[in-house]
């Protein structure tokens, strides 16, 4: 089975995001970039298939700026077999999906696993849009993939249990979580990844329409600073409990 994971490079979750001087973007200078966490789960899910069946081929692709190459390298170091980069500095979400559809047509994976959303803009757009463009079945927010006769079983967590879907291949799923935490790259994996070629093409060379409905960020601002906490200390414990209940009901409005 060949599994393709379209991934996105995003600011690392440990980065303290700052709004830039234009008020419409974040400061990207000097920040650490990583694979978006849900994409990491998708990679782990695919690599678990590869652990179970060594004939599985796991490929990654990204549509993004040139720096995204590092995220692809990281995926190779984790154990992915192939990576390719489509460079695009600014494009619409639909443009990204179209470019990915082109890559899918060329590379013919049996299964495409997307993170359910990227952790930077949280749109959750590209996975379903890609399935739509390909005309493939799509199951959202899966937690497990099991190969079965005639396709794959795709598991989703739902309130109080699981749903199990079956899809004929090729199919696309968006990933909520893998069974295990994403693996760390091994040191031999890092060395091997350095030797692998990552082919690069500009989005223009794919011959796809990169336009599409778009949006514009009007302004960005950090969340308002939190007010100071309140310490209740007057009275005995019963009185303090009453004051606390009142404050939670009337001020915090959580009761």
């Amino acid at each position, binding site marked *: 089975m060949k599994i393709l994971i379209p991934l996105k490079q995003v600011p690392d979750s440990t980065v303290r995001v700052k709004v830039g001087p234009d008020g419409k973007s974040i400061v990207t200078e000097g920040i650490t970039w990583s694979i978006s966490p849900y994409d990491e789960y998708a990679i782990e899910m695919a690599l678990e298939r590869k652990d179970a069946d060594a004939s599985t081929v796991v490929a990654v692709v990204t549509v993004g700026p040139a720096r995204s190459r590092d995220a692809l390298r990281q995926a190779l170091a984790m154990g992915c077999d192939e990576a390719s980069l489509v460079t695009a500095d600014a494009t619409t979400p639909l443009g990204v999906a179209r470019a990915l559809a082109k890559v899918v047509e060329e590379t013919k994976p049996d299964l495409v696993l997307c993170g359910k959303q990227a952790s930077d803009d949280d749109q959750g757009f590209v996975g379903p849009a890609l399935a739509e463009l390909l005309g493939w079945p799509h199951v959202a927010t899966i937690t497990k993939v099991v190969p079965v006769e005639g396709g794959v079983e795709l598991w989703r967590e739902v309130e109080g249990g699981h749903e199990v879907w079956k899809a004929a291949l090729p199919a696309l799923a968006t990933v909520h979580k893998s069974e295990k935490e994403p693996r*760390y*790259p*091994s*040191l*031999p*994996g*890092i*060395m091997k990844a*350095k030797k692998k070629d990552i082919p690069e093409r500009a989005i223009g060379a794919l011959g796809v329409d990169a336009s599409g409905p778009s949006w514009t960020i009007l302004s960005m601002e950090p969340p308002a600073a939190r007010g100071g906490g309140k310490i209740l200390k007057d009275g005995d414990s019963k009185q303090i409990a009453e004051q606390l209940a009142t404050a939670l009901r009337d001020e915090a409005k959580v009761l």
Partner: protein
Amino acid sequence: MNPFVGATERELAGAVADWAKGLAGRIPAAEKEGALPRDVIADLGRLGVLGMTIPEAAGGLGASGVGFALVLEELSAAWPSLAVGVAVNSGIVAGSIVRHATVEQRQRWLPKLMDGSGLGAFALTEPTSGSDAASLRTAARREGGGWRIDGQKQFITNARYAPFAIVLARVGELDPKRTAAGITAFVVPLDAPGVSVGRPERKLGLRASDTSAIVMDGATIGADAVLGEVGKGFAIAMSGLDGGRIGIAAQSVGIARRALELARAYAKERRQFGRPIADFEGLRFSIAKAESDLAASRLLALRAAWLRDRGRPFTREAAMAKLYASEMAQRATHAAVQILGGNGYMRDYAVERYARDGRATTIYEGTSEIQRIVIARSLLAA
């Protein structure tokens, strides 16, 4: 950014640092129990850390000494007790096998140092021979087509986890004028008949690292257990220790670095007299001095590793790095405890552990006094 360090080496160390972030929750229980979790050792095998010094042809990573020093710094910053186990396994033990073993011995023993099933041990010290290592008394004699070893080794790191130990034993009588003569290195499987491990030592620091005696009472091993040549073991031990000293220097750097990072973070948060204590000059100067010494120590360690990677003599440089960095680690960890004040003395804050763990660095792999002898000898020879 450091000279001597390439992009790959930086990347390998970064990967280990990322992995090691996940260890924090394991440390308090393991330190209390006095044992490294076996699954963490297994993970180090899977990650390829344990095999990083072993050549690619033998199934390892074949990374440089500089890369290994940086990885040891990261492991020590995260968890000194774990780092010392790795330093011994992948430093002196793996290095001695790689450099001195026959093809058959390599094929038999190197996989056990890499697969995460245990950590190898190096057994030189005895109850009556520490710095005067060449006066060791453990005796080996030929018996029944193999060897019989009798004697006791003391303070052996990893003894409890080791698939085998490299044991230094004397073949023939002790010649008081040439004490090193006859000393031979043997690969002794810990499950060989007549081999037992003593109770774990109770230590000031590095409590999760195993330090135990290895007792050989008529230990029986095969004829193929000799590492290198009979009578040439002391040179194997000494060249192994040269490399090991770079490892201890790197450990010292890691321990001091993390203690100072914790102290800096605390100094910015902790307020006294209406402002963060980081505003007070006395404390600022303490941090500035400690960080400068830390940077110097790292450069000394990397220089020694860099020379070694190029096949150049590095005995003096390794001794200088070990001496300077281990002494630095004492000052730095104590400065960190002082910055945290009363909290620094409490177990709830990790700096007291770094201060205890760092204490061993001026002692093992040759005390500071021995390093001075080594350095002076090389400077004043002929």
